[in-house]
């Protein structure tokens, strides 16, 4: 009898554990390897493995064409794509290309803005992660004054 009870307890504990595991936000630790990567492709691989990636214009990704001050480059991303799990920002020419990664409860946020630093003119990529695919939008930003030299 007691054996049965513990087995049930055990099963309950496993269900509880599974529930914690599927909570998408708290479970994610900061991906150190991706942030330390020197090349954009390395960073993407560390973040997403071999998930298929598709170039798209289906979401809005706003950066200035010419940034006078590379230390404050405004970025706006807005999307109404369903099931967006995360959005990552990469600056190809920065020493560590991965700048930021935002994780969302699906459907909670449709637009956000932030500001990033750029050492020199470069492509900037926004990568949207959904359950089964990655969508990437690339924009080129010309920087008049670099933001990393101080």
């Amino acid at each position: 009898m007691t054996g049965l009870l513990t087995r049930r307890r055990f099963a309950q504990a496993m269900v509880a554990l599974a529930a914690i595991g599927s909570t998408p936000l708290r479970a994610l630790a900061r991906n150190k390897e991706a942030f330390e990567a020197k090349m954009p492709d390395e960073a993407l691989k560390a973040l997403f493995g071999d998930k298929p990636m598709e170039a798209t214009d289906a979401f809005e990704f706003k950066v200035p064409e010419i940034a006078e001050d590379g230390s404050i480059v405004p970025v706006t991303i807005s999307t109404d794509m369903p099931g967006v799990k995360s959005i990552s920002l990469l600056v190809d020419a920065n020493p560590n290309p991965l700048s930021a990664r935002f994780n969302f409860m699906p459907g909670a946020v449709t637009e956000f803005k932030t500001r990033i630093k750029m050492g020199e003119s470069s492509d900037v990529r926004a990568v949207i992660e959904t359950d089964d695919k990655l969508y990437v939008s690339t924009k080129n930003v010309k920087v008049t004054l670099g933001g990393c030299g101080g």
Partner: protein
Amino acid sequence: MEIKPPKIRGRLKGDTASVKCLMPHPMETGVRKDLDGNPIPAHYIETVTCTHNGEVFMTADWGPSVSKDPYLGFEVKGAKGGDVIAVSWTDNLGNSSSGELTLKGKK
């Protein structure tokens, strides 16, 4: 060094809250040098957590290439008057800070 807590402002439009948050922080990259040529150690916000009435809806992992005194603007769906939006951060030296906002408007 004293770092001030994040400042949060926001307003409701229908059931969507547009929130703006400014987090005072040096965001040192670790590659800059001071006037004597000594490297300035990296000091930057690593993780940001945003909650709506205590429930996490967005987290962010940042590298040092997010601008100094980071700005974060976002829209929260399904918000109403009296709801609390909070933003907290932790940096690479283990400091942390947080700020919150109670939305004004129809409950």
